[in-house]
């Protein structure tokens, strides 16, 4: 006991004397340039040693460094430009480091394009990012409207009350949604259940357009949208939010957690509800034939379904050692659909989603690491008969995914990523013959070589091989190159391939479509394949960013449904093809402090034509505009955001009988949003907004019309509970 005490005293003395002898103490404070508020959790790194410090709640840091004539420290914080400060012996105390906002976000770390973390500006694959700060600023209240507001060329319409995505000409089958890099089970008319995503719990969304099957396998033909969820990075954090809006919208969310030394935990919960409402046509529905127009005699109405959602997430991380870290995440979703019309009096649908993800990382040494991942995702659809209180499950989709990835820094300039994967999926659905369920599996090996040829030239190439239980082997290569012709400018070119394995539904369906016709699967289907060629040029400083992208996406062996001769049955066949061309332009500019304008434009020709008639509902031109302005006064921060989305007119032809087409016109439209928020000391934020500011409603709410009841309102209150416990060091 006594000896322990002596030992401890000795150790302390020793340490003290070491500091006394060799080190200098550097102290200072890190604040933000825009609002002059202290930045907590900024990292302060000494340039030559591995010593670092983290700022406290009030932005203060202190760092002990060996004495030298001159020293440099690097200060970085997410959302701000990294700054290097030179330290002279005379000036070591009370340093003030002012970090400038990273307005163009070119230093955001992205992972989707290469499966290894890289700053956006260095990624050879053009990646678009929506950060948690963007999500806060946009404050749309739902994942769907968040994507729709922010991305030109993306539109959600309603297919019998199921959201139906169109990303520059490609639908739900061709856009792969991932959460933390992992697949999501369950679909309805080829779209995932977007309520699996809690917008309050998103750290960032990474969007890579074009094929990317080399890294992500099946379905990554038109793009990958990877949603990275939040983690705890502080000893204590707790946020609460509530929202109310038109059409009975209510939301209550809470998230919080801890990170102490080796252990971290993060919990997020969201409950929300909204009412059904009616969309009333303003004009009579018309079908336009070559020599006549057929006009409905009554104005149609369409009921948009509300519902209730409960979304829970728990994440636990543990660092067993400096080399071995583990993370486990569990998710639960329960969604109730308030079925429209008379059906809603007897039937509501329940949707249950579960997932478990385990990520284990072993840093063998600084140059080599191994990651093992297991993902289970499960989705059930249940009919709930309200009067008799009976739940009846009629759909279960489950997938298990095992992956082992090795990252090896071969030389300073060459990184090799290789992986093996096993994916198995099972499905039982009311669309199969009574009692049937089916499964498929695939084994995968892939390799990617990331070669920094010179400081200005980066080359990433990859190859993937899949062996699927139904159709056998498939190869998917890709190559990306990035070249910086001059400072702040870059050119990117990508050739990538994509594929989509026929789904279990397409292989095995045997379903009577509401007594109208039979849909029959085909077990001999082959995968659809795509080739994307894309070129991007961009230029960016911290005030201006512009980029232009041109792409071609060529899809062959596309699956489609074909009628039999008797016109009573449809079959799946690999007989279709599609050639999509597109352009995307984007610009961001910050003409003065705290003000930013962002604009995007896309042109799409999805080549979906027959006899020269356009069959595609894709709007050829689409644009977004976003203006953010922040005003600071004392403890208050006022934010004003304006968003607009513009979509051009589209005329969609339908073949009624052999060579007789009628068309339906979907007029151009614009949707504006205005949102104002008032924040007090990072503690309380009260915001209010108007969606669809100019009260646009579709004249006819037919199949591909935008879904909006007109102008709607919301108010939102967020409380950052942990900020009330901030203590000065």
């Amino acid at each position: 006991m006594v000896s322990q005490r002596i030992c401890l005293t000795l150790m302390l003395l020793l340490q003290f004397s070491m500091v006394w002898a060799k080190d200098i103490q550097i102290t200072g404070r890190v604040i933000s340039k825009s609002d002059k508020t202290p930045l907590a959790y900024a990292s302060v790194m000494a340039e030559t040693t591995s010593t670092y410090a983290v700022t406290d709640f009030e932005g203060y840091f202190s760092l002990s460094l060996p004495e030298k004539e001159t020293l440099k420290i690097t200060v970085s914080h997410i959302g701000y430009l990294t700054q290097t400060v030179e330290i002279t012996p005379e000036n070591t105390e009370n340093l003030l480091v002012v970090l400038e906002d990273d307005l163009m976000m070119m230093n955001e770390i992205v992972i989707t394009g290469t499966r290894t973390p890289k700053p956006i500006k260095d990624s050879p694959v053009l990646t678009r990012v929506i950060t948690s700060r963007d999500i806060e600023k946009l404050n749309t209240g739902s994942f769907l409207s968040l994507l729709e507001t922010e991305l030109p060329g993306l539109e959600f319409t309603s297919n019998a009350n199921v959201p139906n995505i169109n990303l520059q000409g490609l639908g739900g089958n061709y856009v792969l949604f991932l959460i933390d890099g992992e697949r999501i089970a369950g679909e309805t008319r080829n779209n995932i259940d977007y309520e699996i995503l809690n917008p309050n719990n998103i750290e960032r969304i990474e969007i890579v357009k074009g094929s990317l099957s080399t890294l992500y396998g099946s379905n990554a033909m038109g793009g990958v949208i990877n949603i990275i969820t939040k983690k705890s990075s502080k000893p204590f954090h707790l946020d609460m939010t509530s929202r109310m809006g038109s059409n009975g919208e209510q939301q209550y969310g809470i998230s919080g957690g801890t990170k102490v030394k080796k252990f971290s935990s993060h919990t997020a919960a969201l409950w929300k509800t909204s009412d059904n409402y009616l969309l009333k046509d303003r004009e009579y529905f018309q079908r336009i034939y070559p020599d006549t127009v057929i006009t409905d005699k009554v104005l149609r109405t369409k009921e948009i379904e509300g519902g209730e959602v409960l979304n829970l997430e728990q994440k636990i991380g543990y660092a067993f050692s400096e080399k071995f870290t583990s993370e486990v995440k569990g998710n639960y979703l329960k969604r109730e659909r308030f079925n429209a019309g008379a059906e809603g009096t007897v039937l509501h649908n329940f949707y249950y989603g579960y997932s478990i993800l385990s990520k284990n990382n072993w840093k063998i040494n600084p140059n080599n690491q191994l990651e093992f991942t297991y993902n289970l995702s499960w989705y059930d659809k249940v009919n709930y008969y309200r009067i008799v209180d009976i739940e009846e499950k009629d759909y279960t989709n489950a997938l298990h995914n095992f992956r082992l990835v090795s990252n090896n820094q071969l030389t300073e300039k060459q990184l090799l990523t290789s992986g093996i994967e096993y994916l198995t999926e099972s499905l039982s659905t009311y669309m199969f013959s009574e009692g049937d369920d089916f499964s498929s599996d695939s084994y995968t090996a892939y390799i990617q070589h990331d070669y920094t040829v010179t400081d200005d030239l980066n080359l990433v190439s990859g190859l993937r091989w899949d062996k699927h239980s139904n159709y056998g082997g498939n190869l998917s290569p890709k190559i990306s190159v990035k070249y910086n012709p001059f400072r702040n400018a870059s050119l990117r070119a990508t050739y990538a391939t994509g594929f989509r394995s026929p789904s279990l539904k397409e292989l095995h369906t045997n379903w009577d479509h509401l007594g109208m016709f039979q849909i029959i699967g085909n077990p001999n289907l082959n995968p659809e394949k795509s080739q994307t060629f894309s070129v991007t040029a961009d230029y960016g400083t911290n005030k201006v960013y512009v980029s232009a992208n041109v792409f071609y996406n060529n899809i062959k062996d596309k699956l489609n449904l074909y009628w039999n001769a008797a016109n009573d049955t449809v079959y799946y066949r690999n007989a279709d093809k599609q050639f999509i061309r597109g352009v995307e332009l984007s610009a961001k500019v910050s003409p003065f402090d705290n003000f930013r304008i962002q604009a995007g434009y896309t042109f799409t020709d999805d080549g979906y034509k027959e006899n020269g008639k356009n069959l595609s509902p894709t709007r050829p031109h689409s644009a977004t505009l976003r203006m953010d302005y922040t005003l600071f006064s004392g403890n208050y921060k006022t934010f004003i955001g304006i968003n607009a989305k513009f979509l051009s007119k589209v005329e969609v032809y339908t073949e009624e009988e052999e060579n007789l087409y009628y068309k339906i016109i979907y007029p151009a439209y614009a949707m504006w949003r205005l949102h104002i928020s008032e924040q007090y000391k990072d503690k309380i934020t009260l915001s209010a907004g108007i969606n669809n500011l100019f009260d646009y409603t579709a004249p006819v709410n037919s199949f591909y019309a935008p879904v909006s009841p007109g102008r709607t309102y919301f108010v939102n209150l967020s409380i950052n509970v942990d900020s009330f416990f901030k203590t000065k060091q």
Partner: protein
Amino acid sequence: MLHKQILAAALGLSLVFFTACSSDDDKPETSETLEVKSVQIDARSYEDWVYFSFETGTEVTVDPENFSESLAWDIAFHRNDVRLNCGTSGDGLGGAFTTDKTALSEVFTAPETGYVVDAMKTIMTKFVLPQPIFEEQPANLEVNWLDIDTSSPPPVYTLHNKVFVVKTASGKYAKIKFTNYLGNMNETMIISMSYVYQPDGSRNF
């Protein structure tokens, strides 16, 4: 002192609310002896009709070949088609009148005249593709409670919320309202009907 005033004001206010709420609940006087009954009728069959008697409040078995000779039934159902015991359908004193009301409680008396008796109607007797089979059968054309629009798939059902007054085979009155065409397990054409039957033969409900 001030607290007491606030308390008194709050009490007063809540009293106003209370009385306001309770006055909402006042309904127009209706005969207390007549009760609203609800039945579910399985009218899914394309071939067969289901016969019902207001007097017994139950379905009744009727010889489908000679239904028009029976006075045991008052109303019959086939999908969204309705028969009353009158006109082409039977020798009874039936008939139907469409009110402009949407709640049973809003109809206090049966009209004296204006009842429509059964005639012939084209009804679907077999659902087969591509062309279903239709037949001319006796039915009531006035009781139009559900529209089925099959012009483009899937069929669109529109339930009319109107209250109908019908006469029974023996000439008594009932007011009826169709509340759903879906059964408890979402089966199309299990009909829910609410009705009030006046057994004393008067026109008052």
